[in-house]
């Protein structure tokens, strides 16, 4: 029988306390505030009303929700479809070139949404970017700014999430047993088909989980839609921030965030359950 170790448990109280108070605490309190009443002069008044949730059931929030889901789904699909093959090729390169790519990707992952968004704003602007270049080349007679637009927003989102997906797959693809692909070749698979016949099926669970992760990630982006999208492209995150900060309606912002939280938790939980079932089979 092992003696109960006191010291590690005491040390454990520190991360446990910090995460409980400053991570779970705010989430729990957000749920509480979502039932409060708005106070136009301060933050909120203590109360218990369903009014904030009631507002969600309107055609405006319905279309914002659908748009958020659709945009996130499209962006996550595009990102994974680009990042997975790219990293697959990169891990086959020499270590020196891998390092160049990894530093570049890490830099992009760390770089502010604001900075990446700003860079795309410039690149798509009439005065300094692609439209100007096309106009100068004579390919576009009347060059006009490409942003804000839905396409600009999607491009911004993909370039924001690309590094994240790429770095998630980097260890898995780097450590994979390459002999499996060689085995497929010796058994008669043409090299061009090995990727689809063997690599993709093996990574199917990992691809699915990265799609879900990125979907959730894109659900919460704020800067790209505001910088590169038009008001009719804005997602739920922008609306929440707008309500909570600009319109000083914290209870409504909190209620909307709680709805998104429930949706996210259900999605992740459902996905985890589905993969467990698949694993048991």
């Amino acid at each position: 029988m092992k003696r109960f170790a006191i010291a590690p448990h005491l040390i454990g109280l520190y991360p446990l306390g910090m995460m409980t108070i400053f991570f779970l605490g705010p989430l729990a309190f957000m749920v509480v505030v979502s039932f409060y009443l708005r106070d136009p002069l301060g933050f909120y008044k203590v109360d218990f009303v369903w009014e904030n949730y009631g507002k969600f059931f309107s055609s405006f929030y319905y279309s914002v929700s659908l748009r958020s889901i659709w945009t996130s789904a499209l962006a996550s699909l595009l990102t994974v479809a680009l990042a997975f093959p790219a990293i697959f090729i990169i891990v086959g390169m020499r270590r020196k070139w891998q390092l160049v790519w990894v530093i570049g990707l890490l830099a992009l992952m760390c770089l502010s949404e604001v900075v990446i968004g700003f860079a795309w704003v410039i690149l798509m602007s009439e005065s300094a970017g692609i439209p100007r270049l096309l106009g100068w080349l004579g390919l576009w007679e009347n060059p006009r700014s490409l942003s804000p637009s839905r396409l600009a927003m999607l491009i911004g989102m993909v370039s924001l999430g690309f590094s994240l997906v790429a770095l998630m797959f980097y260890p898995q693809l780097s450590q994979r047993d390459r002999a499996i692909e060689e085995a497929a070749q010796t058994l008669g698979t043409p090299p061009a088909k090995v990727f689809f016949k063997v690599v993709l099926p093996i990574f199917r669970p990992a691809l699915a989980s990265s799609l879900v992760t990125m979907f959730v990630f894109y659900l919460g982006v704020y800067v790209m839609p505001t910088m590169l999208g038009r008001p009719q492209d804005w997602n739920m995150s922008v609306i929440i921030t707008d309500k909570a900060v600009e319109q000083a309606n914290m209870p409504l912002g909190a209620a909307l965030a709680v709805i998104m939280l429930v949706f996210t938790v259900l999605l992740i939980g459902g996905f985890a359950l589905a993969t467990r079932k698949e694993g048991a089979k």
Partner: protein
Amino acid sequence: MAQVSFNRIRRTYGEFTALDDVNLGIESGEFICLLGPSGCGKTTLLRILAGLEQPTAGDILVDGADFGAVPCHRRNIGMVFQSLALFPHLSVGENIAYGLDVRGVAKEQRRARADELTELVGLPGLYDRPVSALSGGQRQRVAIARALAIEPVLFLMDEPFSALDAGLREHLQIEVKKLQRKLGVTTIFVTHDQNEAMSIADRIVILNGGVIEQAGTPTEVYARPRSEFVANFVGTNNVLEVEFTPGADVMWNGISLGRPTGDMASLHGRRKLSIRPEYLQLAPAGTTGTGMVGTVEFVRLLGAQIETELTVSGHTIIDTMISDRPPAFGEGDTAEILINLDHAWVIPS
């Protein structure tokens, strides 16, 4: 069943030469072991034959036809990889039937063939089992069945048993050998374990530093090593640098080893003599009058044999004898070493 011939195969990686002018012919139905220390080029040679790597120079003929231009997936080769490389997303049966699937064989026929092979390798009824649920030995068998399912012209194995424990490894070695005899498929097996090579190969090809040191039957490489490397690499051995003078005794460090007879009698000059430990005999000091006297450094029991390590003027000599009685010598004892030159082999220089 196919004949293979490697002609002047060379493979370099930048400055490093993995294979240097390798020539080797393999008969149809032969079981060949490529044996050597790590980095000797044995795996590279196998991968070149499989088409997974291209030689820098030289060509490969299979049944007289040039194999070099044939891409890997058209070579019709069965290969068992060191990591086995089973497809983790497929079941046992789907793994075995994979090669037939890519060849467009109909589903029922694939199933029938996979069942036949699971039977052959001793895994009946496991068609639907996921490969992750198999034991180490079972996974080996799936890998072997998968490679054989396509009726390959050549069967290649790259250190397939290196991750298994000794008992299971021996068991599978015997099984593979029996299976190969039954099917008659030309087989090339890469290993760094000389016992494994000795026990399964028809012919052993010993590589060192990218060069073939010797190719021969297990008996040949053991009894008549062509180089000092082979003499030391295969089995335990004593390699002594001796001086031959026609009409006089063979001398080693000023000690007489006796008068040579037969072919050895006409030799002269410095040569390397290989003499296996089992052909040495030990006697108590002062009983035989031989000049070769050693001090016992270490004695150990190896099951059927007793191995005694002695030093004679700074050189280590190993002796083995049948362990039908307790060791006659202990550490620190002095013993006389008797050499029978009829069992010694002069390494060609």
